[in-house]
């Protein structure tokens, strides 16, 4: 085998790189963490079913943003009920705590939404 040492070294480096998540999780010991977003108790109804909200809440917020900012429609009817199209005034009534609700999953899944680049971040006690 010509340059056997170099080839095997390269192979080992490659294998370490592609299995990086395994070593990373062993090193940090966080592979069993599960996010647990907190909602204020006593609320049963959201603007949309939980499954839809889990996958597509960003679309809903995006549409609301367009409605309010671009078309000046601050209220909208969803399932026969009138809602104020506002993240801070409607959503955060029940999902009141940014740190314990929004950030819980966003940090877990490494998502960095830019909501709070324009809006004032709610102050948590």
């Amino acid at each position: 085998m010509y340059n056997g040492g170099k080839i095997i070294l390269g192979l080992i480096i490659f294998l370490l790189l592609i299995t990086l998540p395994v070593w990373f999780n062993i090193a940090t010991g966080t592979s069993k963490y599960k996010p647990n977003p907190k909602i204020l108790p006593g609320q049963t109804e959201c603007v949309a079913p939980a499954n839809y909200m889990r996958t597509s809440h960003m679309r809903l917020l995006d549409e609301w943003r367009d409605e309010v900012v671009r078309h000046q429609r601050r209220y909208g009817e969803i399932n026969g009920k009138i809602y104020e199209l506002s993240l801070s005034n409607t959503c955060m009534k029940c999902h009141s705590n940014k740190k314990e609700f929004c950030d819980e999953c966003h940090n877990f899944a490494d998502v960095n939404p830019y909501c709070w680049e324009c809006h004032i971040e709610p102050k948590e006690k």
Partner: protein
Amino acid sequence: MSIFYSLLAITVLILIPIVGVGGLGWRYLFGVIIPYAAFGLFIIGIIYRILLWAKVPVPFKITTTCGQQKSLPWIKNSKLEAPPNSFWTAMRMSSEVLFFRSLFRNSKAQLKPGPKLVYGSGILLWLGAICFHYSFLVILIRHFRFFIGPTSKFIEIVSGLDSFFQIGLPILYITDLVILIALTYLLLRRFLSPQLKYISLAADYFPLFLLLCIALSGTTMRYFTRIDIVAVKELGMGLAGFHPVIPDNLSLMFFIHIFLVSSLIAYFPFSKLMHMGGIFLSPTRNMANDNRKRRHINPWNPKVEVHTYEEYEDEFREVMKNAGLPLEKEE
């Protein structure tokens, strides 16, 4: 015909998870067992192929060069084109691996009316290849976020740059768009050019179809049908931490995506995609052009029995002495 076969293969590959998960509900098989098996095959296959190549004897030093070799000090030489030592070989190799330098020199010949043969630069292939490969790398790095627990700063920076323009929500990743365009180009190229179509095999079309379907299922999932990303990460972390779980909120599109990716990595070591490892083991590129400085021993050389003069003299010393012949050593 080769297009038909690879299309057939990819259709079957898409139908398998549709039947298996959508019809029969074998979520554990498609979410855990098949990805593990595919990854195992990937690792074993890569080690096997690399060691197989490494064991091949190199009878001659066959470095390809396109520049003056290093010789006398007053002759100008080209270190990158005819690398005189392993450092410059590594430099040339990295320019090949990182920038596809030899592909950049791709030229095309065309027969113009006259008839006149015209040569021009064929840079589009290089552009398509580099766009595809770097997009694929960025996408691969981005996907690491589904497998590692705490958010990594590096992945965050890569994803941040990739979503730089903040188009739409979920934000459009530039590489998602680029990889689709590049793959479409690489595929159309084979369809539209008669010469290329003539030499294209099923093994050329199939990886392109497979990659295109992976990119399409992934982008569909992110931008259109959407998926519970927390569930995806739970699955990914389970796989990477060896305590697999199957969350409930995984859509069929996700299973198609993960099955196609499993197919890709299982297919990888046994296909032309192994050029990833093969580039490093190309004998024309991984050797220094130092033929005149260092002797290259051919491992195939048979063992030659030699009989030196000293041995000859030792053998016939007595006879030579008696015949009065001159000797180098009297003893």
